[in-house]
């Protein structure tokens, strides 16, 4: 082990700025602020020194021979050509069909729809004409209940008419309260 000293922690509110400072990603103001702090803080100085020693060594610096890159390029271009060839094969296969494919599908769709309507028409008619006796009880409406709801509708309409009348005419006072000088309204 190179050192047995405990790891010095940077100031918590500066640590992120120190990382950015190491990578040169601070703004000018931030950089000045960090540099002023580094003058005063040994822990943060130690943090930056550790980054400067450690992080460059993690960057891979292998330089591969030119032959590797020549092979890589040739292989990539070959793969691109093969991909192009595969895509062209599919396009060429379906290209002659394009001229008749859409009309053919359209005609088939119309034919299927027509057949479905013809075959289904009889069934639809029979459904409509089905006597109520074959309908489930939950669907059948009770005549009495319908009459009750119709009367409710009528009552609601009457009250609307009355409100309308009240709005158009002055309210008719009762006989005893009417001043004697005023003529009665027609």
């Amino acid at each position, binding site marked *: 082990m*190179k050192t047995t000293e405990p790891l010095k922690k940077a100031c918590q509110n500066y640590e992120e700025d120190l*990382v950015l400072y190491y990578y040169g*990603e601070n703004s000018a103001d931030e950089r000045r602020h960090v540099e002023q702090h580094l003058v005063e803080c040994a822990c943060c100085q130690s943090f930056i020194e550790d980054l400067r020693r*450690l992080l460059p*060594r993690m960057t891979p610096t*292998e330089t591969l021979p030119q032959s590797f890159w020549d092979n890589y*390029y040739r292989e990539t*271009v070959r793969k691109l050509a093969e*991909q192009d060839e595969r895509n062209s094969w599919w396009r060429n296969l379906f290209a002659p069909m394009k001229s008749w494919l859409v009309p053919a599908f359209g005609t088939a769709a119309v034919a299927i729809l027509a057949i479905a309507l013809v075959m289904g028409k009889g069934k639809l008619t029979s459904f409509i004409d089905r006597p109520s006796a074959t309908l489930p009880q939950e669907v059948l409406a009770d005549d009495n209940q319908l009459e009750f709801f119709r009367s409710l509708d009528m009552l609601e309409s009457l009250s609307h008419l009355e409100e309308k009348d009240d709005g158009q005419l002055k309210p008719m006072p009762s006989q005893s309260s009417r001043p004697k000088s005023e003529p009665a309204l027609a």
Partner: protein
Amino acid sequence: MADVQQWRDEELVALCQQGQGQYFEFLVQRYMQKAFHIAFDFTRNAETAKDLSQDAFLRAYSKIKQFDGRSSFYTWFYRLLVNLCLDHARRNSRVVWESLDGVTDKPSVTAQLSDSHSQPDQEVMAGEACRRASQTLEAMPNKQRTAFMLRNDQGLSIAEIAKVMKTTEGTVRVYLHRAVAALRQSLVEFV
């Protein structure tokens, strides 16, 4: 041909979108090294990195007409590649820290973590540091690891990383901070 190599990405992409796919090869030439290194960062395996980065090119080519130009081609391509690498990492759920030994004559990452005048015991320590770094990276959430590798290894800015990861710059800063703090915590004794 030299003139074409000077063309901007947008010009090459526009030609590809018009059906002149041969211009995509110039984009391959331009970005194949970066693509491979990103994939290698994630997978630590040269063969897998080659396959993944080439898959990313194939996918980008097949989707080139869907590229709407709102971001740069590179950011869009990067995003495709990173997503492929993350999917691969999820399927395999293990990153093996390998070097490009046998492919390159440069020192491996393991050797980099030791001093230049290292002794055998120091090389053992470097190997241990390597394993510790691998474990720390592997234990991180995917997004933290992605943000760290894109910044530290690939040199993307925080703004670019935010576009690749489809998140905010503030979130990237948090990921980066946490990743670096965790690595420092685990590796500082080896520095």
